[in-house]
């Protein structure tokens, strides 16, 4: 466990311990030439724990699996799902799948961008909200679709953005209180 502390910088030790035992449970043989096949799975776990994959987490994973850091960061930069920047407390996702696009999701996205003064992919300066786009969440019947956490808003038009943001602000506040 000594290597666990070696890379710990600012993120909670407890999460590193969880990640460590996740990797241990996979029972990877350090001589297995196919051990890289576990990398993406481990990164998914790491991101679900930390919320994002900053360099310190990348280095931890690299060391743990015995692959070099550049390979780990190369994989992270390739896949859209992985992010090296933290998201906002409340993340708002606009579906930009074809069905939603045809029903006007572009305008909905613009409206959110105007409201939050950030572009898609960005986080507000207070760290409360982030905005991103998704591709087809499988609710095309409700297009355009907006997702806030697990909640799905359907048939969204730009005029509804204010109401959705009211919900988001409530959600962010309740998260603050629970802390």
């Amino acid at each position, binding site marked *: 466990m000594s290597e666990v502390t070696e890379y710990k910088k600012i993120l909670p030790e407890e999460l590193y311990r969880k990640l460590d035992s996740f990797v241990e449970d996979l029972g990877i043989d350090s001589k297995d030439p*196919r051990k890289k*096949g576990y990398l*993406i799975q481990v990164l*998914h776990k790491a991101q679900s724990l930390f919320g994002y994959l900053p360099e310190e987490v990348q280095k931890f994973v690299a060391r743990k699996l015995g692959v070099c850091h550049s390979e780990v960061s190369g994989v992270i930069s390739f*896949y*859209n799902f992985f992010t090296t920047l933290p998201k906002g407390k409340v993340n708002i996702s606009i579906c930009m799948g*074809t069905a939603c*696009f045809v029903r006007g999701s572009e305008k909905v996205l613009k409206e959110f961008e105007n409201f939050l003064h950030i572009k898609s992919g960005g986080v507000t300066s207070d760290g409360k909200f982030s905005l991103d786009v998704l591709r*087809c969440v499988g609710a095309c019947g409700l*297009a355009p679709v907006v997702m806030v956490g697990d909640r799905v808003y359907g048939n969204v038009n730009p005029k509804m953005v204010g109401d959705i943001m009211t919900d988001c602000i409530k959600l962010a506040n309740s998260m603050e209180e629970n802390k």
Partner: protein
Amino acid sequence: MVKQVRIALRNCGRVNPESIEDYINARGYEALVTCLFDKKPADVINIITESGLRGRGGGGFPTGIKWKAAAAEVSDEKFIICNADEGDPGAFMDRAVLEGDTHSVLEAMTIAGYSVGADKGIIYIRAEYPLAIERIKKAIEISKEYGFLGKNILGTEFSFDIELKYGAGAFVCGEETALIASIEGKRGEPVVKPPYPAQKGLWGKPTIVNNVETFANICPIILNGKDWFRSIGTQKSPGTKVFALAGKINNVGLIEIPMGMTLRNVIDNIGGGIRDGKEFKAVQTGGPSGGCITRENLDTPIDYDNLLSIGSMMGSGGMIVMDEDDCMVNFAKFFLEFTIDESCGKCAPCRVGNKRLLELLEKVTNGQATEEIIPQIEQLCATIKKASLCGLGQTSPNPVLSTLRYFRNEYDEHIKDKKCRSKVCKALLKYEIVPDKCNGCTRCARSCPVQCISGKVKEVHTIDQKACIKCGVCYTNCKFNAIIVS
């Protein structure tokens, strides 16, 4: 009127996907038992080959032939991969099958393993499908308890295990060689074929990659026979296809139709016509690799070969209906933006060519294009198609070429008349105040973000066209319909 026929979706919504007993009651695992006890691996492959089943993941490659190639390889290890990466950004057929009929995919993969001599299966699934993942995990566990999966299946010599691998949001990983690279923990970049995965796939071993829906067709074919399957659909494309019908249509959702049905039937009868009584313009199939089907082809029977000949493709099942309000140039641009986001960047024709192509299209939608731009677009499309390494690049110009072929008039209007008939391309719009209708309420002037509307109270207002940024705020704010867009 031809109706829907359910093969791939036969159990979805009818059989509780979380109950293996219910699945067994619906003839579940009967096909596996038949194969293991009554048929040699080669017999199974023959049935699949003779059924004429073609891959439902887009390419339409004959499934039996793929299996035969992998079976012919001599190797200590072979793999069966189920492609559940479902990348077409407007489609969710595979998710529906995995969530609604989980066991049938596991059963079919096991049959594939038996046929080609593989003992390991992998489902490569989008991480964005948590419910499907949960159900697959449970289904794997319970089928092992029942002896349908794992060591010595049903007491035979045959063993087969299935594990899950997760995608991480890269469209190109749906391409089979990129998918294999991704499972190996690498960046999901495609490699040149041949060798095909059936010869050299995952970890260099013979590998079969099939789509979820392809697998969902296997058990019914084994149970009901090749002749039954061939009695549905057309000569060259037997069976059915699942589509995610969406867009400007009344009944949206998943449909499963026999091959050979006309688009007219799909739209008018199954889809219940165009929304809000608007006029049909086109249907897009094949997602970012496909093209559109227009009014003139409404009566073309839908199958692999017909769709290709009219410049579209079957694709994995996205079917987007567009009406008069959709601008076809903008639509082509939408898919191109998608391709650029998703290009893996390995080869220049795709990485650089598509960016350049988008710039040309932007000139068209911004009103900066001249007539020479069309041949430039066509030439660039041809180069990208020819020189790209993988299917993503090779098919990426299709939406542009297809809209150019059927909607050349819309391109011309953008270029020559600087007009967008569907009023979508902002730069080409013009907001004007009709003097007769304006009563000088000042509402528009107060709401204009760049303050380019002038006029005194109770007098006719005017818009300074040079300063107008075409945001449309005045248009939505005027209560007297005094502002028109053209």
